[in-house]
């Protein structure tokens, strides 16, 4: 299988879908001629031209709104918000319009729109360019929320997102763009709501997405040397969420820890935790623990940023507490 980067997986998915379906268009700030500020989308403008690949003004409301209107009337747009934090500028278009239009119209409207944005911290981008924002979108029924952790999942999930008839928020972790991974040859589609067991284990279930999958994996390696076996689950999509895979794992291990690079209050781990206690409490043999950013904002200073973002050490400590060892 070929090895490509997370970044290359994005442009491959876009390229394949634009080649397959002339209704797929792509626009955002500097995504065309410049190939994107993260250099994620080079070559598309040259290949598909200025009608289908467009640079926009710095106008997030106009970008999302144009995506919605084009989607409602028969195109299948992919739009880029650059940094996920910028979604706050256009939450009305995303939450009040894209997410609710189908419902408010009694099912008359479809919004096959894919909103791409880069999220996540770790490189000193400061408080307004580093947040993991998935919870904003999970609170808006009507949206789907995708959080890929590796190149193969980027490829398979982005292609599925573009073909989906719902508005999909596709969140890329900006500090994973250079990470490499194997991707299958040929057409690769991953259905939404299909978690993957990244690592099999018996003593504790770790649920993590995006960059936290590798953080959990590093913790698992440390613990394995001590005879503690961790199972790691990557949900890959938070809406829809594959609770069956998580519940099956917890029923086996008896312990649940979520690893989230996001604010504690209202995070996806809280929903996972309560659903596990609701449906599998008698399988639990220890406390459910959430390793998160806490109630902080991503700081600029390097030591502070490293302090708030979950590390393998914090995950190891949480596992020890869950197992009471």
């Amino acid at each position, binding site marked *: 299988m070929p090895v490509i980067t997370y970044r290359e997986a994005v442009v491959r998915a876009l390229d394949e879908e634009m080649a397959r379906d002339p209704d797929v*268009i792509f626009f955002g700030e500097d995504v065309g001629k410049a190939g994107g500020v993260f250099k994620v989308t080079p070559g598309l403008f040259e290949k598909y031209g200025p*009608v*289908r690949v*467009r640079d*926009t*003004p710095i*106008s*997030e*409301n*106009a970008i*999302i*709104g*144009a*995506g*919605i*209107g*084009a*989607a*409602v*009337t*028969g*195109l299948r*747009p992919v739009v880029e918000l650059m940094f996920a934090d910028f979604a706050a500028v256009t939450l*009305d*278009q995303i939450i*009040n*319009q894209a997410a609710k*239009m*189908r*419902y*408010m*119209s*009694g*099912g*008359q*409207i*479809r919004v096959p729109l894919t909103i791409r944005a880069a999220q996540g911290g770790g490189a000193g981008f400061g408080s307004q360019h580093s947040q993991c924002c998935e919870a904003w979108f999970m609170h808006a*029924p*009507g949206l*789907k929320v995708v959080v890929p952790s590796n190149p193969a999942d980027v490829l398979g999930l982005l292609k599925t997102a573009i073909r*989906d*008839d*719902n508005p999909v928020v596709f969140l890329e972790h900006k500090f994973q763009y250079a990470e490499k991974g194997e991707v299958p040859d040929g057409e690769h589609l991953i259905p939404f709501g299909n978690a993957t067991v990244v690592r099999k284990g018996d003593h504790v279930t770790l649920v993590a997405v995006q960059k936290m999958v590798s953080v959990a994996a590093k913790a698992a390696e440390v613990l394995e040397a001590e005879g503690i076996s961790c199972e790691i689950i990557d949900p890959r999509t938070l809406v829809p969420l594959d609770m069956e895979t998580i519940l099956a794992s917890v029923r086996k291990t008896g312990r649940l820890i979520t690893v989230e690079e996001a604010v504690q209050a209202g995070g996806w781990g809280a929903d996972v935790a309560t659903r596990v206690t609701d449906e599998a409490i008698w399988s639990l043999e220890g406390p459910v623990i959430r390793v998160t950013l806490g109630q902080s904002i991503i700081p600029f200073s390097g030591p502070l940023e490293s302090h708030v973002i979950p590390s393998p050490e914090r995950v190891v400590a949480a596992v020890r507490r869950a197992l009471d060892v």
Partner: protein
Amino acid sequence: MRSKMLRNMMAIRAAEGRIQELFLENVIRGTTHLCDGQEAVSVGMAAVIDAARGDTVTCTYRGHGHALALGMSLNSLFAEMMGKEAGCSKGKGGSMHLTDMANGLIGTFAIVGAGLPVTNGAALTAQIKGTGAISISIFGDGTPNIGAWHEAVNLAAVWKLPAIFLCENNLYGEYSPYETTAPVPHVADRACAYGIPGVIVDGQDAEAVYAVVEEAAERARAGLGPTLIEAKTYRYRGHSRTDAAPYRKPGELDEWLAKDPITILSDRMIADHQITPEGLDGLWDETHRAVQAATEFAMEQPYPPLEAAYEDIWV
């Protein structure tokens, strides 16, 4: 065209009056924003729209008139107002959220300024697919003060989208007089900032509205981009159900009642022997009967089944 515009204006007037009564009787819940006095904008705009070609409209929560003018049935509107399953949006939208895709109405947006960016997208589809369709966004005089308005007009101008931005300047943004919230005398004055035409039209004259919207549509279809149109009009009632409009200047309502859009068109038609005064009376009777029939239809309809609350969220 005159006859259709007249009938639709009368239907809108009669429907709004009946809707207000039904609110006061608690048959309709929530709130409502009525458009009596502004009917000429609705019918002048709608005369340009061809849904079969792909033309689309977004407008504001003061949208009953636009919906009816575009072709929504009275039954569908009244059932929606009452939250019934037979409503245009299965009762889940209500007064502020009317959609009628078959007639080109994407939605009556209840967030100020939210419709313009979406109209751009519909115009983008038309531009890319070469359908010759246009998209019109209708908004109030308070809307140019919100950021989404600026972003959308700017993008449409840069991309030369086949869009029309149609302002209903009814002199008040909610309760605030236009001149207290805007630094220029006319909404149309803002067009120069985007290098697009800004046109002022008598919003009480349905035929005049039609003429300027049609000209803007021809310009849009020719690839010349959007036009900003400002229709000077007036709402006879307050902003919403609970607003008695105490902020009006003395005599202002009477001045505008003397420029009533239905009277302007019907007088013209009488002068041109297209209708008689008796014929007009007959038309009013017919219109009120139709509105009453729609009221009774809607009242007899069932509410949606409870499981509908969890349907139509995802495809």
